């Protein structure tokens, strides 16, 4: 278990800079998720921490020691890959013990540590099988077992669940969380799936275009996004965004939308009259009915998911999604009325995207 620190990390391919000075401190035993859309640099950053990618500028510290010139093995890290990357010609036991064998550990010690990891991951029965004889979930567990046996300072996960089907992904997510609670090793987890990041991580780092947009706990990011990008990325279904201008309605701040309707916003928002803004409305913050900040629109689509129903309706020339109770009698083509408390209306500067 060790802390990890990134100091102004940069990565360039020729003249093209793809990571623009990322700094980050990760505490001992912390579980950090790096999230962002494809091409945001999250995997590149992870591979630089692992030592699989050269660092153009900046420093990576593991356990307080600069590791830039060290090989992945010398950094004492373990990595779980998206495609599992198991050695096809070796058995499960050989895969898990390969690193220990290269370290020159006696066979009895290798067997002991592989046995312990196998018990922890319910792989004992599969130790003599080859990877081709395992299911996707079992392979992923072997990949994690291979990481555990080394007792590394840091676990690195590179989208480890993206090759699994939806059900298995949820199951493995739980297993990873349980595993981290058991071994408490510092973990850095790359994913583009914000649900995975929210459920697993102690803190989330949202990356966009090679820059950190925001770092915080899952709920901090959800409740107080620093900007429009984070607000749109965290939360599912995604936040609804509408353009408007700040006005005063009945002496209170409101945002006048393109169609002339007004949405009241919390008085503590740092806005000025006439400011061009964007408001963000989380689908799950809508309450069916017309109390308070009510909006009305024609229903375009109704998606029942069981406990909840997603209603897509037209408002102010935009398509808005609302998540309402599963029993709500919304029907295609009818008028849908929903309201939202003004304290839950997010406001962003239209030009910079910063939260106001």
């Amino acid at each position, binding site marked *: 278990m060790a802390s990890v620190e990134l100091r102004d990390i940069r990565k360039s391919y020729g003249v093209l800079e793809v990571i623009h000075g990322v700094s980050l401190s990760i505490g001992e035993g912390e579980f950090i998720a790096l999230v962002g859309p494809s091409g945001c640099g999250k995997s590149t950053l992870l*591979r630089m921490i*692992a*030592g*699989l990618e050269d660092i153009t500028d900046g420093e990576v510290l593991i356990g307080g020691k600069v590791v830039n010139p060290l*090989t*992945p*093995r010398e950094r004492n*890290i*373990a*990595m779980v*890959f*998206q*495609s599992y*990357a*198991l*050695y*096809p*010609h070796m058995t499960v036991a050989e895969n898990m013990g*390969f*690193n220990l064998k*290269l*370290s020159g550990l006696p066979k009895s010690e290798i067997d002991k540590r592989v046995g312990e990891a196998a018990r922890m991951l319910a792989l004992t029965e599969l130790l003599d099988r080859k990877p081709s004889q395992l299911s996707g979930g079992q392979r992923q567990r072997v990949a994690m077992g*291979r990481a555990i046996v080394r007792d590394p300072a840091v676990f690195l996960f590179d989208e480890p669940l993206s090759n699994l089907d939806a059900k298995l992904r949820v199951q493995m997510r739980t297993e990873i969380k349980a595993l981290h609670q058991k071994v408490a090793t510092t973990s850095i987890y790359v994913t583009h799936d914000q649900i995975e990041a929210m459920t697993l991580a102690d803190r989330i780092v949202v990356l966009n275009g090679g820059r950190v947009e925001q770092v915080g706990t899952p709920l901090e990011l959800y409740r107080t996004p620093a900007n429009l990008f984070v607000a749109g990325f965290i939360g599912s279904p995604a936040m609804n965004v509408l353009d408007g201008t700040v006005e005063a309605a009945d002496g209170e701040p409101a945002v006048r939308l393109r169609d002339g309707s007004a949405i009241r916003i919390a008085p503590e928002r740092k806005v000025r009259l006439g400011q061009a803004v964007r408001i963000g409305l989380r689908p799950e913050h809508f309450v069916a009915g017309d109390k308070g900040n009510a909006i009305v629109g024609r229903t375009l689509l109704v998606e029942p998911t069981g406990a909840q129903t997603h209603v897509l309706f037209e408002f102010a020339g935009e398509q808005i999604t609302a998540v309402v109770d599963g029993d709500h009698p919304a029907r295609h083509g009818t008028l849908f009325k929903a309201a939202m408390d003004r304290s839950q209306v997010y406001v962003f500067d239209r030009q910079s995207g910063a939260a106001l």
Partner: protein
Amino acid sequence: MTDTTSSVRMITGTRLYLYVSLSLVAMLVLLPLVTTALGGFKSLGDLRVNPFGLPSEWLWSNYLDILFGDRYWRQMLNSLFIATVTVVLTVIVSAMAAFTFAHVKFFGANQLLNYFLIGLMFPAATAILPLFIRIRDLGLLDTYWGVILPQVAFGLGMSILLFRNYFRNLPEELFQAAFVDGCGYIRFFWHISMPLSRPIVSTVGIITFVHSWNSYILPLIMLNTEEKYPWPLGIMVYRGEFGTDWQLVLAFITLTILPTVIVFFLAQKHIIAGLTAGAVKS
């Protein structure tokens, strides 16, 4: 309905064309082989009047005399030794070179690879005089090494190309996982790449073996002592001795062809797969 009928007719037509052309090719290949094998069972008189038909009397003694003589087996062992050592050296050297070209970036890598690949364009026969001089200078004339080393050198171009394409197609994440596990290039080569390369090792091994087995010019130039002759040279000597007894020459040829045919049938899957894999320089 009409569409279905016409497509069925088209498939039948294509099939028929395929079968006829394949049968013609098969006949072209098999006719000399079968004629040679049958010729070995005939008497000289029978062979003269009936060169293509079945023997009027099956003379097994033609084959048995060769099989019970020591010349056939000695030459087979010579061929076997030369081909086996050639295969082992070619596989080791070309696999290591190809691994370097596939995974290690260094200045002039492409130029060096192209230099090796130029070797594909020149058969050994085109360089026979300088080769002879070099082998003589090295004191390897009339030794097995005088045949083996040039064969390995001329086999490297093709073998490196096949190995390199195979190594490049191994998943990148496998390399990274091994790197994280503590492998350097050498350990990755021995512990991961080579165990996963059995198909391409078989392909390169078989192609090199067959090439060496059939090699005639190099042994002819480099070897002087008859005791060291491999089969292709042995056939020529045998023909010189029994030039009038064509039935014996045909029996000898048949017996030398047989092992290659058997090996090809056993390993044709690997040979074809390997040749297709190396079809394109990527």
